[in-house]
């Protein structure tokens, strides 16, 4: 059963600490998205990769956030230093990047920064 795997599922950290969230896209998918979900803003696109190259990271605060794909099986989202306003659920999704194909979502990482 192919699925997008995100780790950790939950993370509580102190303000100022570095946080790394990981995503394993579905094997063979060449497109990866990072979304952040909050009550106030809903689901916002943070970054978008195709064939491991970043296509759009305009939604990501560049001073503290970074997103990478070290290889085709791993995407990472890093926050350094973390702040309480970063508390949210972070979703990774993957897809084939072709017409009429859907994006498959992981179960998200719930981040709490205290």
């Amino acid at each position, binding site marked *: 059963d192919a699925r997008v795997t995100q780790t950790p599922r939950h993370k509580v950290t102190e303000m100022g600490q570095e946080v790394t969230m990981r995503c394993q896209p579905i094997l063979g998918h060449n497109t990866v998205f990072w*979304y952040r979900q909050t009550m106030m803003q*809903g689901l916002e*696109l943070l970054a*978008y990769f195709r064939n491991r190259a970043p296509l759009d990271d305009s939604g990501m605060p560049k001073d503290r956030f970074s997103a990478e794909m070290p290889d085709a099986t791993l995407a990472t989202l890093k926050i350094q230093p973390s702040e309480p306003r970063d508390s949210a659920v972070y*979703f990774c999704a993957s897809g084939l990047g*072709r017409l*009429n194909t859907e994006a498959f979502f992981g*179960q998200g990482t*719930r981040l709490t920064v205290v």
Partner: protein
Amino acid sequence: AQTVTQSQPEMSVQEAETVTLSCTYDTSESDYYLFWYKQPPSRQMILVIRQEAYKQQNATENRFSVNFQKAAKSFSLKISDSQLGDAAMYFCAYRRVIGPLVFGKGTRLSVIA
């Protein structure tokens, strides 16, 4: 930039009844895709139904159907014979031909037994 608006933050429906969730969007593109996603308390985002803008026929998936009005840029979701398991957040989303999803703020649906 494309935007998606869901004007109903919350809705409720009696079990076995029908409910319609509203969605409007703004785009200058002529070809695009529209989606409804369901998010139950488990947090998992589940695709409910998809509509290609070039298709005039409204998509249906079992008890779920859409009313796609391209000129009005409207894309509503109808759930027939509502079940307790339908209770969730529902998100309307837009996507250019190839690109990321743009989501509305969601509608929380409650199903009353």
